[in-house]
């Protein structure tokens, strides 16, 4: 495990250095073009990046959760979810229980965030919570917990910041340069008789600068995606190991694949945080080097090809078979350290940890919806006719007539 984290870290560091080099290059050019002094531009770029990184480090998780509209829940709000997170926390060996958040969104998705293993959060949409049974939920939570355990969370948010800085700097610099070129172009024409050909060298530098401004963000994005894709496979492998039931995650991913509701609050920058690409479209098979996630069908196939075990070696073998490659995703030493791990049987959903038995989709939906109502201060009235009225805060205090039987209730 540790060796695996280290191997990942080396690979990631190389990619991060590449991204950092891009940032330096951007700063250099900005300095050359605007101030005639490359160092000044470099300093500006580093200050912007440093400032954004500090914010991301200390406030990143709350910003991300805030942007996603996530609400923190207590064990009593949804005992089943809390219990599953706890199980996965123990299985993964995390020391501190991550905070659990719910996003009120019918789309199916989940993500993990936080600055380190002791300041981490797991968020899941209400839609996903409704659709998944216990085994599937465990698979998804296992995947998210392993992002925390494998230290992916901070790395991805820091890479996101680096990417963001590059995008912002080159966006504004290229706009200013274009504008300057148009304004300056007019001036040049007037004075061209006097200084004919004098600007040739400057123009070449200018064109190179513009090209770099356009290409740098694209390169940075590709590097970002390369970092995030690798980590998705490893998180899948870890989830299978923690749950000892790869079929749970496979079946959850299948449900995710079938749904094409986009996540309302997702942006390009936050996309790699989710368990599956939040912008997926049923009609487009996204399967190239611009994807943040490996194709979902491939992830399912690998999980299902794991054969009789839940160990890393099983996942690695399945990965090589499905991808038809010799280079696996997990190093031999890591796989050997984990050893052989058998599968467990599917659990029957029962009243083990909740007051009400959770045996079907209908009950689960009511459970999740009622939790959302409670969190939004709805009041529930049980009418004698069998209907339940759930009244929003704005209507409380008035008289509500049951639309079924006509009885009136004081809300």
């Amino acid at each position: 495990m540790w060796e695996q984290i280290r191997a990942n870290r080396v690979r990631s560091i190389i990619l991060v250095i590449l991204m950092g080099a891009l940032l330096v290059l951007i700063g250099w050019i900005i300095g050359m073009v605007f101030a005639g002094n490359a160092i000044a531009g470099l300093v500006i770029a580093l200050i912007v990046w440093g400032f954004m990184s500090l914010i991301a480090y200390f406030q990143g998780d709350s910003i991300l959760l805030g942007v996603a509209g996530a609400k923190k829940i207590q064990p009593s709000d949804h005992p089943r979810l809390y219990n599953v997170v706890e199980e996965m926390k123990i299985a993964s060996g995390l020391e501190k229980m991550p905070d659990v958040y719910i996003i009120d969104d019918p789309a199916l998705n989940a993500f993990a965030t936080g600055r380190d293993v002791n300041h981490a959060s797991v968020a899941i949409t209400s839609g996903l919570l409704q659709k998944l049974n216990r085994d599937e939920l465990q698979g998804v939570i296992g995947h998210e917990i392993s992002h925390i355990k494998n230290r992916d969370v901070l790395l991805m948010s820091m890479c996101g910041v680096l990417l963001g800085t590059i995008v912002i700097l080159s966006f504004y610099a290229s706009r200013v340069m274009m504008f300057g070129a148009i304004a300056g172009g007019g001036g040049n024409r007037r004075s061209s008789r006097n200084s004919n050909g004098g600007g040739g060298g400057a123009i070449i530098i200018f064109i190179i600068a513009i090209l770099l401004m356009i290409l740098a963000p694209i390169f940075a994005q590709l590097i970002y995606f390369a970092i995030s894709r690798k980590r998705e496979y490893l998180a899948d492998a870890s989830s299978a190991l923690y749950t000892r039931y790869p079929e749970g995650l496979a079946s959850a991913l299948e449900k995710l694949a079938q749904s094409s509701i986009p996540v309302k609050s997702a942006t390009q920058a936050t996309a790699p945080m989710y368990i599956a690409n939040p912008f997926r479209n049923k009609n487009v098979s996204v399967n190239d080097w611009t994807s943040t996630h490996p194709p979902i069908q491939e992830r399912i196939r690998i999980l299902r090809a794991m054969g009789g075990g839940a160990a890393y070696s099983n996942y690695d073998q399945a990965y090589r078979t499905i991808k038809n490659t010799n280079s696996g995703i997990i190093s031999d030493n890591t796989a050997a350290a984990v050893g052989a791990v058998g599968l467990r049987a599917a659990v029957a959903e029962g009243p083990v940890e909740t007051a009400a038995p959770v045996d079907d989709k209908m009950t689960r939906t009511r459970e999740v919806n009622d939790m959302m109502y409670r969190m939004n201060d709805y009041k529930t009235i049980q009418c004698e006719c069998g209907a339940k009225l759930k009244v929003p805060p704005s209507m409380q205090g008035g008289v509500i007539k049951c639309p079924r039987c006509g009885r009136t209730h004081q809300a």
Partner: protein
Amino acid sequence: MICPVCKKDMFVVEYKQIELDYCHSCKGVWFDAGELELLLEAGGLKEAKQTLGDVLKLPEARTSEKKRRCPICTINMKKVVIGGEKGVMIDACIRHDGLWFDGGEVADLIKIISAKATGKKETESEIMGFLKDVFGG
């Protein structure tokens, strides 16, 4: 949820574990896609996922009635007639978020369904049957 007609808060009516959003002032009903699916699956109808798609395939009804916006995605909904030729015109969200029944439409639906013998299990009659269960009492 906000009523697409009155722009006021609606409240939720749960009956037989199915939820509907109900507007107190105009008596309109929002039938959410997820709840439709639950209802039809519980009724043993397999093609639950297609139902909204089927409703949306119906021709756009000619009417002077004002377009209503979906309370979830706020895109204008499509007006279609369900329940046969002399059926009722309802609004369907083109993004498959759900169905909207104006206040009077529910009552009309209930009249239609009482007049017709509903032997066959169809998605439309299942939906109307449930509305009758809730509001026909």
